[in-house]
């Protein structure tokens, strides 16, 4: 077997084959070790792919040797190589982190199924990112979503509301997936092809009701999956009641992959020849992105549950990504891609810090955070550093994101958007500040359920600090994220055909 030639399919095949094997392992430590090993292997393969794409350009892999557009094609360019590395990297960290947290928060009889579902979720997310076939996107999107519903429902051991949250997400997610597949169906009817590159060629110059309706269905369907502002109602409950490790994993990956799919469809499938793309940017993504940034941030400010607060903050951060890509410039798209990567790093670290607190106190209410700087200093500082990153303080990745976004906003002539970005960062400062104040300045409780809290175990602290360190490292050195994202954005813009 020539490994280099098969590399393109391995990020999907490794977790896909490994997931069912998990079920045969004995209960206890084995499923976790197995899943962690697989996630590291997947991450290594993804890094190899990034360097291959970076040196040799686009990789195209034909499944079953059937040439596209008839066969399914895996097509890896700079943009999805970056997202692949991100998803598998977050997977590698969260899988390693999960053991103690899952032991406490998930029914032990379900722990084998838990790691199996996590691997299937990883498979789905990698598949969505890697494929160059529009229908394949739908299949993998459903693979990842279905496993996510199950994973969220496993939070039922600590809070029965996880069941309704999972059901709610199931309904909304299925509506989203149905809309998406209706959109794909309409495009298929209009063009007779499902391959993205081929769709792009055949859609050129076509602008009729069917294609327009297909476009609208796809945008709304993916909008539901990525929790675009008014379609975000499933997200807060899902993130709040899911087991903490699951919250960390899906908050850092699932919505990011959906944003990537949106970018892929806007830029690589439709392109700016299709007038609706420009309209969608100006009349849908820009206002909804701005509204999401503010309304969701304001709602986050008034949450007494830290996980719910972070969930609303995620909705707001998705607003930044939509804002960036709605500028329809290389700078804007770069900002959007950079923020996809950076937000995953900070939200992953924040949710992991909350997971540590939940592990020791059993609660994610803000009351449980009182005086934790004395009881759990390592966790506290991880939370505060990644919180600073979320706000956008210099030397963290958050600053890089905001910097790219502000530059793009000024370059695109949306100077008011630049002011709004800064203003909404101030709200982020307020809600992170609330938790920081609780942790740093309050006296730790001497009695009650939270009194016995002590530092989280090493198996949780080390992976969490790896992510916190990544927040700082990529905030100082932007060669990897910034330059790669810029190259990805230029390539995407070239296919899309310049400014609308």
């Amino acid at each position, binding site marked *: *077997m*020539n490994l280099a030639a*098969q590399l393109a*399919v391995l990020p999907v*095949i490794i977790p*896909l*084959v490994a997931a*069912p*094997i998990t*079920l*045969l392992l004995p209960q206890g430590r084995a499923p976790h070790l197995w899943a962690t090993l697989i996630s590291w292997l997947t991450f290594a393969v993804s890094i190899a792919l990034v360097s291959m794409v970076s040196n040799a350009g686009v990789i195209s*892999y*034909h*499944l*079953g*040797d059937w040439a596209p557009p008839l066969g399914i094609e895996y097509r890896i360019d700079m943009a999805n190589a970056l997202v692949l590395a991100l998803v598998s990297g977050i997977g590698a960290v969260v899988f390693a982190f999960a053991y103690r947290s899952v032991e406490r928060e998930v029914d032990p009889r379900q722990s084998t199924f838990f790691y199996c579902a996590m691997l299937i979720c990883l498979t789905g997310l990698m598949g969505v990112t890697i494929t160059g076939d529009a229908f394949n996107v739908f299949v993998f999107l459903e693979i990842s979503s279905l496993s996510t519903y199950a994973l969220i429902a496993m939070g039922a051991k600590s809070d*029965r509301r996880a069941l309704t949250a999972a059901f709610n997400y199931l309904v909304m997610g299925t509506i989203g997936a149905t809309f998406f597949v209706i959109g794909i169906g309409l495009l298929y009817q209009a063009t007779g092809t499902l391959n993205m590159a081929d769709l792009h060629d055949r859609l050129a110059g076509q602008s009729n009701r069917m294609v327009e309706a297909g476009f609208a269905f796809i945008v709304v369907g993916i909008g539901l999956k990525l929790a675009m502002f008014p379609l975000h109602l499933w997200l807060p409950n899902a993130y709040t009641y899911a087991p903490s490790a699951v919250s960390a994993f899906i908050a850092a990956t699932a919505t990011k992959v959906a944003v990537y799919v949106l970018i892929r469809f806007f830029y690589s499938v439709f392109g700016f020849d299709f007038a609706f793309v420009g309209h969608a940017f100006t009349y849908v993504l820009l206002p909804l992105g701005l509204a999401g940034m503010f309304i969701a941030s304001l709602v986050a400010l008034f949450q007494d549950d830290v996980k719910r607060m972070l969930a609303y903050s995620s909705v707001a951060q998705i607003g930044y990504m939509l804002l960036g890509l709605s500028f329809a410039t290389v700078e804007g798209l770069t900002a959007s891609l950079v923020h996809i990567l950076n937000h995953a790093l900070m939200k992953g670290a924040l949710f992991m810090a909350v997971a540590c607190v939940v592990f020791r106190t059993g609660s994610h209410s803000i009351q449980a955070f009182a005086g934790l700087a004395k009881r759990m200093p390592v966790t506290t500082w991880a939370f505060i550093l990644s919180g600073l990153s979320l706000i956008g303080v210099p030397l963290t990745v958050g600053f890089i994101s905001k910097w790219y976004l502000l530059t793009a906003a000024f370059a695109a002539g949306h100077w008011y958007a630049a002011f709004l970005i800064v203003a909404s960062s101030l709200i982020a400062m307020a809600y992170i500040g609330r938790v920081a104040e609780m942790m740093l300045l309050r006296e730790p409780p001497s009695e009650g359920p939270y009194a016995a809290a002590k530092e989280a175990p090493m198996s949780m602290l080390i992976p969490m600090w790896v992510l916190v360190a990544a927040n700082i490292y990529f905030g100082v050195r932007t060669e990897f994220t910034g330059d790669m994202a810029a190259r990805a954005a230029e390539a995407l813009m070239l296919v899309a055909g310049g400014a609308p």
Partner: protein
Amino acid sequence: MERAILRVTTKIFFAPIILYALYVQFHGDYGPGGGFQAGIIFAVAFILHAFCFGLEETKKALPQRALIVAMVIGLMFYAGTGVATMLLGGKLLAYDVIVPGSTHHAGQHYGILLVEWGVGVTVASTMLTIFYHFTGREPDIDQEDW
């Protein structure tokens, strides 16, 4: 003996249903049929058994744990065929490498047969697992227990 006709009929039908499932299974790569349909029909035989003799009797014949193992084995047939073609030097699921140099694409035939077999086993065991869970459901939870 109670419901003798029902019991005897079920016993008579059980084997032909499974035979029919296998017919649909192996017919699948040339005509209508295939793993999905065959898996469902295969599961129907056991569902009929459960209707007649009760869930506990069926679980004795085909325990839950065996179904999970069957699911994994089915998936492994499918994925394993894909990985095998990769190990033989082809692309994932490029069946032609299974029988190299064949003039009438014999590899395609064997490949799809293996994959369909995997699909059949997985679908049958998944169907039965869903059936076991729905019929073997515990009574509703009291309002107090929430």
